[in-house]
């Protein structure tokens, strides 16, 4: 039972005849256009890197920009006024703009960890159920549900979080800040669940049926088979699911922008308001002078997000590749 999905397709197409029929003009034009389009996919990724990097670079090179926002100002504590204790502050709009990234980093980390630790157990368990235990009618219910969840635009999830979940939670717990890391994290987990579910369900169903049959034949129960045979065999795929879910959570913008309170506070409490990297870009890019240090700092954050998610995705794909190799050797 090898399903498609994460596993790249092994073509069953016989090798094309060597003799290449590229005689006609339309053939040659089509060939150039099609190859050009494929290169455009690679090119666009490179262009993203170049053009975000270009606007981010002044943070490292321009002395004009560095007066306000150099690396040390971004990463080290700064004295707001002479005589006061050094602090980490994100206050880009003030007499002496402060661009410490630490509050944003803590905010991003808090909300991502909350979202992922809600989403991963739920989604992986649901995927395990769908692939191992579920009768077909249950499978036919849960799969469309996940598709629906994946199809809800993130601004709608953000709206729901802001209008409904935040009020429920505040009513139940009476927190000081209505919009906080926990509220945003719950909303964010809704965006993470579909991807974790899909990738890990693919991994579970790509485990060869012979593994299960062998396990059952040895007298294992269905739970023992699922937890000690299928789960370990599919582990790289589950890991990939977690990694990709993490990447999704870090980059998601609208949900955290709407439901996190957007206060750049340096605190570890999950019920304080937070501000994330992505939300900072979304909230501030619209209302600033193009070419100002603030502008370049936002692109610097964007470049950081881009590289981070890029590496996370590579890692996720690598895990999927591992799974594929592992199961190929075993089957």
């Amino acid at each position, binding site marked *: 039972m090898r399903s498609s999905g994460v596993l790249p397709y092994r073509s069953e197409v016989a090798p094309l005849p060597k003799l290449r029929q590229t005689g006609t003009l339309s053939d040659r034009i089509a060939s150039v256009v099609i190859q050009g389009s494929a290169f455009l996919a690679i090119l666009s990724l490179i262009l993203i890197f170049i053009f975000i990097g270009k606007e981010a670079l002044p943070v490292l090179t321009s002395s004009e920009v560095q007066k306000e926002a150099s690396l040390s100002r971004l990463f080290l504590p700064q004295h707001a006024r002479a005589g006061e204790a050094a602090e980490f502050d994100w206050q880009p709009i003030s007499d002496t703009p402060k661009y410490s990234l630490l509050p944003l980093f803590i905010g991003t980390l808090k909300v991502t960890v909350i979202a992922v630790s809600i989403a991963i157990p739920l989604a992986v368990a649901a995927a395990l159920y769908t692939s191992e235990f579920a009768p077909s009618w249950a499978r036919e219910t849960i799969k469309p549900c996940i598709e629906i969840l994946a199809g809800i635009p993130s601004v*709608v999830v953000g709206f729901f979080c802001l209008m409904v979940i935040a009020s429920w939670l505040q009513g139940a717990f009476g927190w000081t800040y209505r919009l906080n890391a926990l509220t945003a994290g719950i909303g964010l987990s809704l965006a993470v669940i579909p991807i974790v579910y899909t990738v890990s369900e693919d991994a579970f169903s790509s485990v060869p049926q012979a593994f299960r049959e062998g396990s059952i034949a040895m007298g294992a129960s269905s739970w023992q088979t699922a937890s000690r045979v299928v789960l370990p065999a599919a582990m790289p795929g589950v890991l990939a699911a977690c990694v990709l879910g993490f990447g999704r959570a870090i980059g998601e913008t609208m949900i955290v922008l709407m439901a996190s309170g957007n206060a750049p506070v340096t605190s570890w409490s999950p019920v304080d308001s937070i501000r994330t990297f992505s939300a900072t870009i979304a909230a501030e890019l619209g209302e600033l002078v193009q070419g100002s240090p603030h502008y370049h700092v936002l692109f610097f954050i964007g470049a950081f997000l881009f590289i981070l998610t890029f590496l996370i995705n590579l890692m996720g794909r690598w895990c999927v590749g591992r799974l594929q190799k592992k199961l190929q050797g075993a089957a």
Partner: protein
Amino acid sequence: MRSHWLARTKYTGGVLQGLTAFACLIIIAIVAIIIGNIVLHGMGKLSWEFLSQPPRDHFTKGGIFPAIFGTAALVILMTVAVIPLGVATAVYMHEYAPKRSRLVNLVRLAIQNLAGVPAIVFGLFGVGFFIEFVGRGLDRGLYGGSLVYGQPAIIWSALTMALLTLPTVVVATEEALRAIPTNYREVAYSLGATRWQMISRVVLPQAAGGILTGGILAVSRGSGEVAPVMFTGAAYSLPELPVRLHNQFMELGYHVYVMSTQAFDVEATKPALYSTVLVLLMLTFLLNFTAIMIRARIRKKLRNGR
């Protein structure tokens, strides 16, 4: 002793298995609650007037017609850009390039990574590349430096969105190409067709369903995504409709964001806000549902073909 241990294992196994079923139940419940809540609160204000009028009195009265029109214009422009590009990329990977070539792997890697780039980064790219570089360049070259394209515009939003939805189209098209039996291609070749004739008259017509699926999924994604259009063309509130490529426009998702975070009077805006969300949700669901139906048919064909 042993039977006791066995019974306990069986019991724990049953409980843990029940927990996984419970996880499914939670997810289903969450989806039901979200949809139910929005439908319940959104139905009230939904009317023909709401769909056909521009907003008035700080979004509390009137409707959302400009946002619907803007979203439609955006996704049409986006589709025009993304379908040829995405289909050509998929055709290259599946029909043109030598099997397992390094280049195909590179293209596939690029597509996969493009799919993982956060939407807000696409927004930044739209500003940095399309507006600042291409737009300003066009202005200098064609308009003598006056500001026409070097500012947020619907065309830049559409192109940014096209880039964001490119992986969706490529993946769906590739799946459809895979479903076409090899002997179709062989027969075409044996009749003396060139490669392009084979692709344009045999492969592409057969893959039409998959391409349609990809297009619909892309439209669904594009009509709900906000972060990429925030700075590249979407306007807070705009009386005119976008009729030229360099106009700004109103978008449903952005309108939801604006209404829920910057409304003058939150309580008074709430009914209109809920209805806007309902419209957006119905739009994306309808599109997704259609795409899923078509895809199910293709998958069936794929299974039967093998």
